[in-house]
């Protein structure tokens, strides 16, 4: 805790955050997804630590990253001896739904989306990194996505997901995450968006009802890090 504060003092002031009303056009947000030079901060992640602890001494596992490939995450996962799978979940989400919220409850659109982004055999993965991407979806699509994730995870496999915890917010930051090491994440912020819905513990428990266990870790920026085990 103290070392984190010292680090933040040494690093100097944080770059300015996005201000103003939330962006509703996800395509525009995606176009400004940050590069390496726009890191907001590095922070510890108990969720990541737990996720990695789940398969640390077992090389050769299959790990799916839904955040799109980046050098850091590829390096980290492959350096542990695992096979890295990448899906740019948000980009496909944007391409298929393009801001049309109503379409997210259309069963054929949902099937098409899942076919594009999570078309894997049952029980293929030992771990899935979902980051904060599940937050973008409306209830029908979210529920179908979680069902699909439960299917493609192996028994005892882990899913790591983040949810904003502050229910008073009318806009939430868009983050992307890169793994610095087993405990630390590099956090990038690239705008704000209106929350599709906010999740309290009870709601998250219901959401992951098909999983064996759910753990929560609350971060300082009011994110709930959730690690679920199938």
């Amino acid at each position: 805790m103290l070392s984190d504060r010292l680090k933040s003092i040494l690093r100097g002031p944080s770059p300015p955050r996005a201000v103003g009303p939330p962006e509703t056009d996800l395509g525009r947000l995606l176009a400004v997804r940050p590069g390496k030079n726009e890191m907001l901060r590095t922070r510890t992640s108990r969720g990541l630590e737990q996720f990695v602890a789940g398969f640390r001494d077992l090389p050769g596992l299959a790990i799916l990253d839904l955040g799109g490939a980046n050098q850091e995450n590829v390096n980290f996962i492959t350096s542990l001896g695992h096979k890295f799978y990448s899906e740019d979940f948000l980009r496909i989400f944007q391409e298929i739904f393009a801001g049309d919220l109503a379409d997210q409850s259309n069963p054929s659109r949902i099937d098409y989306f899942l076919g594009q982004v999570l078309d894997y055999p049952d029980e293929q993965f030992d771990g899935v990194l979902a980051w904060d991407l599940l937050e973008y979806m409306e209830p029908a699509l979210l529920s179908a996505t979680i069902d699909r994730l439960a299917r493609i995870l192996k028994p005892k496999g882990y899913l790591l997901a983040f949810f904003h915890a502050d229910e008073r917010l009318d806009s939430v930051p868009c983050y992307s995450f890169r793994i610095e090491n087993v405990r630390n994440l590099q956090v990038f912020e690239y705008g704000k968006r209106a929350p599709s819905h906010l999740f309290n513990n009870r709601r998250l428990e219901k959401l992951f009802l098909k999983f064996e266990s759910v753990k929560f870790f609350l971060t300082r920026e009011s994110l709930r890090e959730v690690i679920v085990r199938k």
Partner: protein
Amino acid sequence: MSVWNKQRREEETSAPFTGNSLRPAPQALPVEIKKETTTLSNMSSMTVGRTEVDGARGGSASIGKAVKIVGQITSREDLYVDGDVEGSLELLEHKLTIGPNGNIRAGVKAREVVALGAIQGNVEATDRIEIRKDAKLVGDIKTARIVIEDGAYFKGSIDIVKTEPKGVPAVPIPPRHQAAAATPMAAPVPIQAGAAEVKR
């Protein structure tokens, strides 16, 4: 003489003079196309494409952006592809560069692969692969080293294959999936105060 090299010679005689187009013709291009269809069109576009990429490829064989090849390509020298290729590409000891206009729907095997355009297919790069900003790769990658620039699109899997140092006999390793299947995932370490857990 390869098909595209022949085309290049013809262009050089017919294309208007530009400083960039002055390049000695290679002695021999040991690139072979195994059968199938070859479509060449729009020669002026081809000249422009070649001029744009001269600095990047320094003497390798090339397929211009107006060229489409369907079939099997094997090469014994570096190859630059800025056109369409459908089938397979094998440059086992050499470097393959997919230019920004390149569109590959093929399995690729090379020593080194640099992607600036689009690849749809599995890629084996014995040494390394670079997926540059704005490149798009859909397929499974097997390589020793990988570089992914921000902005690149990648969908598929990455398998890092460690190359054995020369002279050291390879030690047999049990298949990964068997090892993984035999041992269940370790349970997570108990968590600190402040974390909540729900068990069912």
